[in-house]
C-alpha cells in the first residue's frame, strides 16, 4: 500500500513520472520492449510493429481531437501523405532518418492548409470539412500518377542504415518501437507546456481561451500541424513496414479506426491513447480466438460470421464506451489503480 507522494519541489511537481515506483516500472517496460523481438513469436513481433504505428498515429489524433477539440475524419489521409512522401524520398535516395521527419513535415504542411477553415467553422461543419480533406487527398493519391503511382501504388524500399537493411519485422521493430516511445513521451510532455495547456483551454471553451489571450488561429493551426506531423511519421513508418503505398490503405475506415481507438482509450489522455490503440488492435485477435472456441464447443458456422461479428463488435465498443464510460479505458485504469493504492484498507 502506498500512502501518498509528497511533492517537495516545483521540479518534482512538474515531473513526468513523479514517483520512484513509476520510474522503476518504466525501466522494466523499456527492457521488456527491447527484449521482445527475441522472445515473442514472429507474429507477435508483427503485431507489435503494427501497434507501434497505430500508437503514433492515434497519439496525433488525440492531440487534435482529444486535447484541442478539433474532430478529424481525415486522419488516415495524412498518414497517406507521410507514406507517399517516404516513397518519393526513397526514390531520391534520401535516407530514412531524414525521410521520416520529412514525411511528418509535409503532412503537417498539408494539415495547416486543411486546418485554416477551422478558425471559421466549428463542430459538425468542421468534421465534414475534414471528411472532404479525406476524399480530396484520396483522389490525389489515385490520380497524381507521376508521384503516387496512381491506383497501382508505389513501392517503398527497405529503410537502411549504413548498408544494413531494416527489412523484416524483427529489424524494423527497432525503428518503430523506439520512435513510438519517443513520440508518446513527446506528446505527454507537450501538455506540460504553455502550448499544450492552451490546446486544452481551446477545447473546453474557445471563446474564453481567446479572452485569456490565447491566439485561437495560432493554436488551432498548431494543433492541426502537430497532429498531422504524428500522422505523417506514422504513415512513413507504415511505408517502411509494408513497403508499399496504395490509395485504398488510407481510406475512411482507417480514420474511423483511430477515432474509435482514442474514444475507447480516453479522449485527452496519452495513457488512453496507448490503452485504446492496444485494445482495438487486439480485439480482432481475441474475437478470432473466441470464434474458434465457439467452434470447438460445437457452434456451427461461427467462423463465417467472423467478419460481421468483428464489425458489430467494433460498433458496439464505440457506442458502449460513449454511453457507459465516456472517459474510456484510461478512467477504468485509474479506478483500478486507486483501488489497489488503498487496498486492503478501503475498497
Amino acid at each position, binding site marked *: 500500500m502506498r500512502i501518498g507522494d509528497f511533492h517537495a519541489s516545483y521540479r518534482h511537481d512538474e515531473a513526468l513520472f513523479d514517483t520512484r515506483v513509476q520510474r522503476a516500472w518504466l525501466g522494466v517496460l523499456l527492457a521488456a520492449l527491447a527484449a521482445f523481438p527475441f522472445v515473442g513469436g514472429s507474429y507477435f513481433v508483427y503485431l507489435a510493429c503494427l501497434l507501434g504505428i497505430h500508437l503514433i498515429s492515434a497519439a496525433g489524433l488525440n492531440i487534435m481531437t482529444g486535447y484541442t477539440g478539433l474532430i478529424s475524419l481525415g486522419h488516415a489521409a495524412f498518414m497517406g501523405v507521410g507514406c507517399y512522401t517516404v516513397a518519393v524520398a526513397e526514390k531520391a535516395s534520401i535516407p530514412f532518418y531524414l525521410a521520416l521527419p520529412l514525411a511528418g513535415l509535409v503532412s503537417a504542411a498539408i494539415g495547416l492548409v486543411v486546418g485554416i477553415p477551422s478558425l471559421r467553422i466549428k463542430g459538425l461543419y468542421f468534421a465534414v470539412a475534414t471528411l472532404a480533406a479525406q476524399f480530396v487527398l484520396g483522389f490525389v493519391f489515385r490520380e497524381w500518377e507521376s508521384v503516387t503511382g496512381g491506383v497501382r501504388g508505389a513501392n517503398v524500399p527497405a529503410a537502411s542504415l549504413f548498408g544494413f537493411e531494416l527489412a523484416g519485422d524483427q529489424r524494423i521493430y527497432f525503428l518503430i518501437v523506439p520512435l513510438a516511445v519517443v513520440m508518446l513521451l513527446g506528446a505527454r510532455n507537450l501538455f506540460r507546456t504553455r502550448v499544450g495547456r492552451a490546446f486544452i483551454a481551446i477545447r473546453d471553451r474557445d471563446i474564453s481561451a481567446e479572452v485569456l489571450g490565447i491566439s485561437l488561429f495560432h493554436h488551432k493551426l498548431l494543433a492541426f500541424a502537430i497532429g498531422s506531423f504524428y500522422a505523417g511519421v506514422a504513415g512513413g513508418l507504415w511505408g517502411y513496414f509494408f513497403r508499399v503505398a496504395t490509395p485504398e490503405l488510407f481510406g475512411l475506415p482507417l480514420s474511423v479506426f483511430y477515432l474509435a481507438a482514442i474514444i475507447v482509450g480516453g479522449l485527452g489522455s496519452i495513457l488512453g491513447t496507448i490503452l485504446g490503440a492496444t485494445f482495438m488492435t487486439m480485439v480482432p485477435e481475441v474475437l478470432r480466438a473466441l470464434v474458434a472456441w465457439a467452434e*470447438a464447443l460445437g457452434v456451427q458456422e461461427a467462423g463465417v460470421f467472423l467478419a460481421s461479428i468483428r464489425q458489430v463488435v467494433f460498433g458496439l465498443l464505440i457506442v458502449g464506451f460513449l454511453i457507459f464510460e465516456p472517459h474510456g479505458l484510461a478512467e477504468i485504469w485509474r479506478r483500478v489503480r486507486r483501488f489497489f493504492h488503498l487496498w486492503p484498507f478501503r475498497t
Partner: protein
Amino acid sequence: MSSFDRRRFIGSGIAASAAAALGAPLRVFAQSGEIVIGAAPPITGVFAFAGAGLHAGLSDWVEWKNAQGGIAGRKLRYVAEDSGYKVDQSVAIFKKIVAQHRPPLFYGDSTGWAKAIAPEVSQLGSLLATGPSFSSDLADPVKAPYYFMPGPTYSGMIEILLEHVSRSAAGATKPSVAFVYSDTEFGRDPIPAGKAKAAKLGIPVALEIVTKPGAVDVSAEMIKLRRAKPDFVIFHGYVLAPIPEFIRQMREAGLSSRGMGTIYSMDKTTIDQMGATGAGFLGVMPYRYSFDSQKTPTMELIREVGSRKPGSPWQTLFYTQGWLVGMIFDQVIGRTLGAKKELTGPNMKAALESINKWDTGGIFGVPVSMRTHAIPAGRTYLVTGKSIEPASDWITIG
C-alpha cells in the same frame, strides 16, 4: 453462399490459428513430413461470392490428393482463414500462417494483398504465392519473382476479347469498342494494354468511361455512350453492378452495342442474376464451365468430388479455379521434389517456369504454358437465352 463450405472452412484452419492467438504457439515444421498449403481466401466480404468457391475448390483438391497418397509420398495440409477481402486482415493471416506453419505455397487474396506481401515473399525466398488477382502488374517475374496467377492477366483477357472483336468483322472497317471500367486498381489495370492492342488491331476506341465500382447511377455516363454508339462495350473492374443497368439503359436508348466482360463477371450465378438483360452478353473465360457439353477428365473429376458434398459450389468457375491452383501446386511440388531439390522459393520458381505445354485434363481446352507467371489462354462465351455457349475456339495469346 451455401452452408457446407462454411462448416468445412472452420475445421480447416481457424482452430489452429486461433489457438496461437490465445498464446499457445503451435509450431509445425514440415521438413520432411507434411507439406502445408496456406490460404487467406475472401470467404466473407464483398468478394464472398467467389471466395467460397475458391476455398472449397482448393481444400477439396487437397483432400482428394491426400486420398490419392499425397505428392511423392508426402501428405498435404490445408491451413486457411477467412480474409474478409480486407488487406490488413489478409496480410495478418499471411504473416501468422507463415510464422506458424512455414508453408511453401500460399493462396491469398486481392491485388492489394499480393503487393503488400511481395517484398516479404521475395525476402523470405521460401514460398510461392498466388491468389485470385489477375492484375498484369503482378505477372512480372522480376518485380514479383515468387508470384504466379492461375490464368491470363486482365490485360490478356481484354486482348482475347479484342481478338474476338477483330475476327468478327467481315469488311475492311473494324467495329468500334468502348471501355467502361471502375476507378480501382482492378478496373484500371488492363486499360493501357487494351488500348494498345486495339490500336494494333486497327479497332477504333470510341469512348472510355470511368465509374465508381458497385451500385451507382449511370444515367450521365449513358449520355456519352449514346452519342459514341460503339459496336462493343467492354466492361471491366466490376462483378455485377452497374453492368446490368448499363445494358438496360443501352437497350432503352435503342443502342445495339454488345456488352462484354471478363472472368469475374462470367460465373453462371452472376450471369443468372442479370436475368433477361444478360442475353447477348459476351465474355472471356479462361476455364471450361462445369456444364460444358464436352466431357473432359478433370471436369468429370471435379463433378464427382464436388457433388459428394451437399451444397458444394462445385459448379462455379471459382471452384474450378481453386482446383486448378491445386493442380499447379501439384506440378510445382512434384517437379521440384522429382528433381531431388528442396522446396525453396528459387527451386519452386524454376519448376513453375518449366511448366510448358501442360495438359490440364480439360480445364483449359488446349495445352498451356506458364508465360511471365501467367497462363495466357482462354476463350469467349456468349450468353444466349438460357445457357452460356462457346463463342470462339480456345485462344492463346502472346
